[in-house]
């Protein structure tokens, strides 16, 4: 199937910019609806708030200084932990699944991918409410556990950190599976076969051949899961019972509940800076370490 690799690639270096204008609509869109609002949020993060909310344009760095309060550090730490855990679980569930899909008969692949994406056809909020029904005391999970005699009393599932992580994994698993699927599909099975022929162990085949060659997919999947989960607020609100905050809840809380837009903007920027730093660090690291098969 990866026959597109055989078509003649455009000669590198011949980067005439005759097709640059094709990017114009996209750039315009990004400029108007992404960069401009972002600049505005940045400006607001240095403003002050009025008594009833709203923005008073007096320059201050107080919003960033406020964030040194240990409580904010704790929220950030908790969010990083939830997001990392979600990413790790998504990876361990998603990788085998993506591998299976990419190695299944070609005519089955669209159906399997469709099944992965099916949940997206329903609103996220509705799906989260469905999880509340599944997890609550007289819900499906507890009903099943009780019926099988595994537990005597219903478990506390809803409104716990576990419920939050379940909800996040459920919500973002497809974001992990899709890039991994693309990466595995491009992985040449002959290379895996060659590794076997050279007496590589099962583990060595996985860690030294499969993982390095699917690294772009792994990174893509992890980034796509980590970033939305660290900023999520619906899931912790509904499945966590609004008892603990993730950083997304803090931002929403500052904007919509206490109407402190400047502080909310400052939190948004700190979050963005952390995420960007992590991604940049990773890509620089990845660029410096050559893959095992490069220059073959």
């Amino acid at each position: 199937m990866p026959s597109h690799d055989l078509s003649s690639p455009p000669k590198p270096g011949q980067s005439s910019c005759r097709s640059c204008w094709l990017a114009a609509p996209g750039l315009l869109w990004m400029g108007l609806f992404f960069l401009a609002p972002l600049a505005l949020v940045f400006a607001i993060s240095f403003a002050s708030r009025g008594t009833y909310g709203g923005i008073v344009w007096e320059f201050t760095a107080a919003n960033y200084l406020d964030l040194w309060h240990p409580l904010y550090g704790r929220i950030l730490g908790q969010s990083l932990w939830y997001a990392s855990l979600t990413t790790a679980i998504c990876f361990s569930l998603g990788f085998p699944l993506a591998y299976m899909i990419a190695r299944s008969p070609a005519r089955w692949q669209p159906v399997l991918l469709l099944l992965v994406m099916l949940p997206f056809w329903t609103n996220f909020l509705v799906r989260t409410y469905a999880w509340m029904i599944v997890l609550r005391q007289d819900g499906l999970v507890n009903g099943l556990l009780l019926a099988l005699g595994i537990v005597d009393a219903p478990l506390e599932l809803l409104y716990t950190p576990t419920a939050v992580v379940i909800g996040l994994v459920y919500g973002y698993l497809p974001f992990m599976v899709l890039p991994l699927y693309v990466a595995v599909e491009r992985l040449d099975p002959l290379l895996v076969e060659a590794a076997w022929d050279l007496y590589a162990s099962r583990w060595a085949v996985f860690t030294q051949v499969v993982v390095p060659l699917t690294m772009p997919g792994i990174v893509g999947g992890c980034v796509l899961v980590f970033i939305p989960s660290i900023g999520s607020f619906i899931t912790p609100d509904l499945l966590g019972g609004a008892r603990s905050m993730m950083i997304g809840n803090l931002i929403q809380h500052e904007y919509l509940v206490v109407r402190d837009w400047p502080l909310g903007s400052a939190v948004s920027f700190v979050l963005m800076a952390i995420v960007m730093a992590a991604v940049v660090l990773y890509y620089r690291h990845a660029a410096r370490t050559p893959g095992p098969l490069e220059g073959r």
Partner: protein
Amino acid sequence: MSLWGLCLLWLAGALSSCGQGGGSDPAGSRPVLHYFTWSDYVGPELIQEFERREGVKVVIDTFSSNEELLAKLQSGATGYDVAVPSDFMVAIMIQQGLLSELDQQSLPNASFLEPHLQALPFDPERRYSIPYLWGSVGIGYDAAVIPTPPDSWAILWDERYKGRISMLNDQREVFGAVLRSMGQSMNSTDPQVIEAAKERLLRQKPLVKTYTSDHYDQLLASGEVVLAHAWGGPVARAMVERPSIRYVVPKEGATLWADCLVVLRTAPQKRLAMRFINYLMEPQVAARTSERLRFASASRSARELVNASTRDNPAVYPPVDQLDRLEWMKDVGRGIRLYDRAWTELKMQ
């Protein structure tokens, strides 16, 4: 399976999830009224009746707290015609210049207002607002689990009910309850008092299953919680499904509230907005609203029309002898910063 296929699948998903909402009105040029109200606060059939009667379309958008309503309007959200802020938020919105004066001539149904709601402290001449639904805040509880009827807020700090308590997800209400339990006014602006209230709430937090303003009627009805800090209406709704649910206004006192109909200064359809408000105040319509939502109507004539089980339910219509125990929530001015900070700290811990 090509990348094209993937893209198509994404697109299908994206399109299906944004199918409803937005877009153009299929009926073409009918005038559109934008109604901004609490979640679960309208009877759809009453709205449809108004649409049919006036040949218009009503678009409903919802908020889940007064603060959210204010935040959205402050962010420059325009296009809304009629909104339903509570008492103290009406005061703030008047002060912020967000409201348009009501045209008294087009509100004949205002004459049906309950006497005690005719001149409320936040807008005594009803220049900007007209009371719509009102009631008390109290505790909804399951009498099958809690044998002795509680009469104090202290029950919400009882270790025996750990993990089976829900609190409103509303800063002024939560602080209001704890302040009254401390013998203070719920409109205190004393930093030390608010700090002490926060400490009490932090001690309570491990017992609280969830902070929610939206679906605690279902939590009560399903037995998931046995004590709920609550507006009366949802408790009355839970009673229908689970007859052992009761409602009490603690002896230390609680909130008296009135949600009011207002027209926004930026409303595109001011005339239609007045007709809509007058329609909602029509005794028949108000009575049906009251029956459906199980909140007390501000219309005296509507009270006479609702059936006795609703009228005599203390969760719906606060009994007269309770009124002196209830306190209006007021705009606390700069003091709101103290509540904002304390609420953030409570939720962050």
